[in-house]
């Protein structure tokens, strides 16, 4: 009886591992070329050009992956974003994915009002594009 339970547990763990692996693989399936087109959603307020001269409403997203939230000098972040940063928010593929899907769920009271990016593939593409941004610079 005990060994049967072990088998079931093992099968569950294996299934969970497979699901996690699939999720990770799915996250890695983002296409930066498609992401560049999807970035039109963000274009009004953001840039990935580190030399962008325009004063935009959102922070520069060049090399955003791995950056702690609210870290760009000279940008007037909202109180909500500063609070999230103080709580340890770091922009990686997972946090960006969740933020694009529902900004307020990640940073309550954020100033960003992007229409929700409901398609997981489009979010993965956007993250892939952002992951590429600024990497051609030293």
């Amino acid at each position, binding site marked *: 009886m005990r060994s049967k339970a072990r088998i079931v547990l093992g099968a569950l763990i294996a299934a969970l591992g497979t699901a996690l692996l699939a999720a990770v693989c799915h996250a890695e399936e983002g296409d930066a070329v498609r992401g560049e087109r999807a970035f039109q959603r963000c274009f*009004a307020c953001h840039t990935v050009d580190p030399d962008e001269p325009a*004063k935009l*409403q959102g922070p520069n997203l060049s090399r955003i992956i791995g950056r702690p939230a609210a870290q760009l000098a000279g940008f007037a972040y909202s109180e909500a974003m500063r609070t999230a940063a103080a709580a340890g928010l770091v922009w990686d593929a997972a946090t960006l994915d969740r933020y694009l899907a529902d900004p307020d769920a990640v940073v309550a009271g954020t*100033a960003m009002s992007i*229409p929700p990016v409901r398609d997981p593939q489009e979010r993965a593409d956007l993250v892939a594009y952002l992951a590429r941004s600024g990497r051609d610079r030293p």
Partner: protein
Amino acid sequence: MRGLTFALSMVAALSAPAWAQESKYYELAKGDYPHDVAVGPKGEVWFAGQKAGIAGRLDADSGRIERIALGKNAAPHGVIVGPDGAPWFTDGGQNAIVRVDPASKEVKVWPLPPERMPYTNLNTAAFDGRGRIWFTGQNGVYGRLDPRTGDMKVWDAPRGRGPYGITATPAGDVWFVSLAGNYLANVDLETGAATVYEPPTKEQGARRVWSDSKGRLWISEWNSGNVGLYDPAAKRWKEWKLPGASPRTYAVWVDPDDKVWLTDWSVNAVVRFDPESETFTSFPSDRPGANVRQLLGRKGEAWIAESGTERIRVIRAP
């Protein structure tokens, strides 16, 4: 007894607002996220539920809310009530102008031509005096739709991305502002050509614009925290800084008495500016993080969309 009477009268005097007013709040469904709001001819209140992709209709008396789906991928940003009494939406999700029939609730969608720009980030709209609706797309366009024929034209905006608020004067002239471009522009109603007018403060972040009864343009300046005024007849500018250390002026609406209503995110408040006395009166929200992106109303009523708390607020004059 005399002392008590005096004390009570002092309490009354100290608590009396500069402008006797009543605030009421209406809770919306979680996830509706009211971005913009507008009032119809019978006092019905429409809101753009951006996250839920719906048109919301609030009956102010009963508090009843009707939610009308605008279509797959809908994410409406702006709403105005047209000369036909119907709500018209600028729907960024569908990249389309959308009308809801106020009686049948039928939804009609006019998509923008996708070959020009698949996603324009549609922002707000205004009707000219000839029954045509003009709109802005924050990714760098503005356009015009004639709903009778379906004819739609889209033009590149000066300085690219940034077109945000748009308004029509009582004479039917159309003006818009550019948030990233930092300008006010007037459009030629036939050719569509835009003429740029530079506000006195550089990089002021002109976010929204509204006309008063005389055709003067009032502008909420996000970066500078100013309210700006451009008088096309006199060709003159004037600007006032909102109270506080670092105001962030988001929305503007001018009421039928030519009082200028604004929202200031830095103090979480609606602010009313009296152009005659050049004074500001503040009406803070009763909850933090109201994030009011737009307000609009009619005589005696200012209707306010609290995107941050997912509520509609009304401030009523006596």
